[in-house]
């Protein structure tokens, strides 16, 4: 690849920061208002918060657990935790960050409990890597290909170390900024960056045959 072409292939880092940030601020303000109403006993405020954030909470739980049913249980548990803990939420971080922290911890606890029950089969580090199974993919309709890829990604995610996976899921899949991930996990932005880097590099290895 010649240099000019290659340069063009490095998109200028820009996530549409201005618009995204404004939208986030508006969402955060709306959440803060709902939190205040919930504290005053307005049950519709809780419903608003649930509807606005349930999909994202589910997305995090699913990516950390690799199982939709478990993820839904974790989402429910997390919102119950929100309900019980709303009095102690001080608003130092946004509601969204607080919720995602709760979901992350709930999912990791859930996974640990499940790991105790199924220790051998769920030992992520010792299970065969998806990319290394040597299994030929079915020849395929597009749908089957997509399903295979999806399965491979879900499995590969489970083979990324827990701390790296959490950082990647929060950033890459739920649209949090590095700063928000750092706040949610109580680590520095530099550590977030390093974990995300390592998680993606690991996925790159695990998905070598799927994504080329």
């Amino acid at each position, binding site marked *: 690849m010649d240099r000019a072409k290659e340069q063009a292939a490095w998109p200028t880092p820009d996530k549409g920061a201005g618009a995204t940030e404004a939208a986030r601020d508006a969402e955060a303000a709306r959440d803060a208002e709902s939190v205040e109403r919930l504290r005053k006993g307005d049950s519709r405020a809780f419903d608003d918060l649930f509807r606005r954030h349930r999909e994202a909470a589910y997305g995090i739980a699913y990516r950390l657990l690799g199982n939709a049913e478990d993820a839904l249980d974790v989402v429910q548990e997390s*919102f119950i935790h929100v309900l019980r803990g709303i*009095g102690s939420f001080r608003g130092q971080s946004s509601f969204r960050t607080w919720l995602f922290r709760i979901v992350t911890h709930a999912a990791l606890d859930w996974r640990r409990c499940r790991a105790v029950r199924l220790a051998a089969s769920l030992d992520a580090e010792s299970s065969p890597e998806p990319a290394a199974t040597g299994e030929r993919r079915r020849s395929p309709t597009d749908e089957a290909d997509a399903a295979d*890829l999806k399965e491979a990604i879900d499995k590969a995610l489970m083979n990324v170390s827990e701390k790296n996976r959490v950082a990647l899921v929060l950033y890459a899949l739920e649209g949090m900024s590095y700063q928000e991930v750092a706040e949610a996990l109580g680590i520095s932005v530099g550590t977030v960056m390093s974990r995300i880097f390592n998680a993606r590099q690991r996925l*790159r290895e695990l998905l070598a045959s799927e*994504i080329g």
Partner: protein
Amino acid sequence: MTTMDCDEIRTMLAGYADGELAALEREAVEAHLAQCGRCRAIVADQKRVQRVLESNAPPPVPAERWSAMSRRLADELAGRKHADLVTQHRLDSLDDLEDESPAEPRETREPAARPRPPRPAASRGPVLKVLGPRVKARRPRLAWVAHAVGAIAAAVLLAVGIAAVRRTTDFGLAPDALATQADVELHEVEVTDPNYNVIVYAGGKKDLAFMWVEPVESPN
């Protein structure tokens, strides 16, 4: 600008790929990338993995599952509201007690010198007599009620101002039901507001504590 080597630049590549670097860092990375094909390949990999992840949505959740969860959470919320109402009832009881106190201004006295008038049983109020049994009977939901009562207790204590807390054996101050319990400790709380007496009852073995707040009665 001095360019950084691969090891120095490596972990910044994720931040670069994601547009999360500050301007100076970004320039340093770009200077390095201009000379290093290996790191350019890593940036491309980081972006590729990110795109793949973003395209991999979790399985959709059927609407009825969300509805069922919503109902479960509404039940939880209703339980919480019930606890709040019970707590509010306690506050109302305290208000009633206050309403019964004399309307004329009381003279201000030093708390340490304040005599404690005898307290007729009838003035001990319904707060403890109602709260104790209900909290115990609803043990599985205890956390909500106990926390709520604790919060109110703290608020009341702040309102009346704590000067000192000391253990006491003056069981004459206690409601009969508690006074006969051998494992109940009494803590007399000396407050800065001369208009109230506060006593805390702590169970020796159970994780329950009751706070008794009553207005000081007028000498006449």
